[in-house]
């Protein structure tokens, strides 16, 4: 399966949390099936993929919700023979990924006051690539997962 590039699978969902489970199911099934070829990811890496995609879509929902944009969030997935790429695109206000504040150390009392802020760290830890393009018209996160 090294000849023709794999096809993109596209999914557009309303920006509400009820669709997260569907997104995870579709992306996980696509990565696990590899369109009839031998899947490149084992179940553990498929679980990692489901998690990082869920984080990216959660961020997209929050971004659009912060400015009341009802547009659908676009999720694109491409399963290659040795990796899976997923792009998540929103129409939120954009953000500077380098400006995301670090959380206090987990063993300090201040950490208890932070219920959010772990999503980007999870994406960076689990994905082999997590590229962010962000501007005033929206953000696209491109995640790459390779076999473990």
């Amino acid at each position, binding site marked *: 399966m090294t000849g023709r590039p794999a096809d993109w699978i596209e999914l557009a969902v309303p920006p509400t949390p*009820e669709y997260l489970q569907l997104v995870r199911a579709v992306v996980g099934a696509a990565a696990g099936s590899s369109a009839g070829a031998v899947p490149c990811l084992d179940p553990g890496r498929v679980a990692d993929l489901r998690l990082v995609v*869920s984080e990216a879509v959660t961020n997209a929902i929050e971004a659009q919700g912060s400015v009341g944009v009802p547009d659908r969030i676009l999720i694109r997935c491409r399963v290659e023979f040795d990796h899976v790429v997923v792009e998540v695109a929103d129409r939120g206000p954009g953000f500077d990924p380098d400006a995301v504040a670090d959380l206090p150390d987990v063993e300090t009392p201040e950490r208890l006051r932070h219920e959010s802020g772990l999503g980007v760290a999870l994406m960076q830890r689990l994905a082999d690539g997590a590229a962010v393009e962000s501007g005033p018209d929206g953000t696209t996160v491109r995640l790459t997962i390779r076999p473990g």
Partner: protein
Amino acid sequence: MQFDVHRRDLPRDETVGGPAGAVLIVLGDLDMAGAPGLRQAVVAEVTAGSRLVVLDLTAVDFVDSVGLGVVVGALRRLRAHDGDLMVVCPAPRIRQVFELCDLDRVFDLHVDVEAAVDAAVNDAPPRGMSA
């Protein structure tokens, strides 16, 4: 699986001399969709006077950063009322997500409710963060 939170009182014989409390059994995916339901259940427990909550994640299929955030918030709410939170989390995948976020340094992750209650009534010092 549809997200839901079931509640039961802590077994009385296991909490002799211990604080009032409950077991919250979480079912389904603990994500942005499910998190508000768990937060509401924890707030209800604190308001009702529970000082020990055992959060049973045995039937949780998926957890993400939003779900973990609610667990952290639950600990903060209980500690603010001199209470504590114990987490039951036998599934390796769910434990791994805690570990990826270093939250295994904060929570003892127990294999079942009985182990969690034992740890609570034996007054093990809380790990990590205090309120």
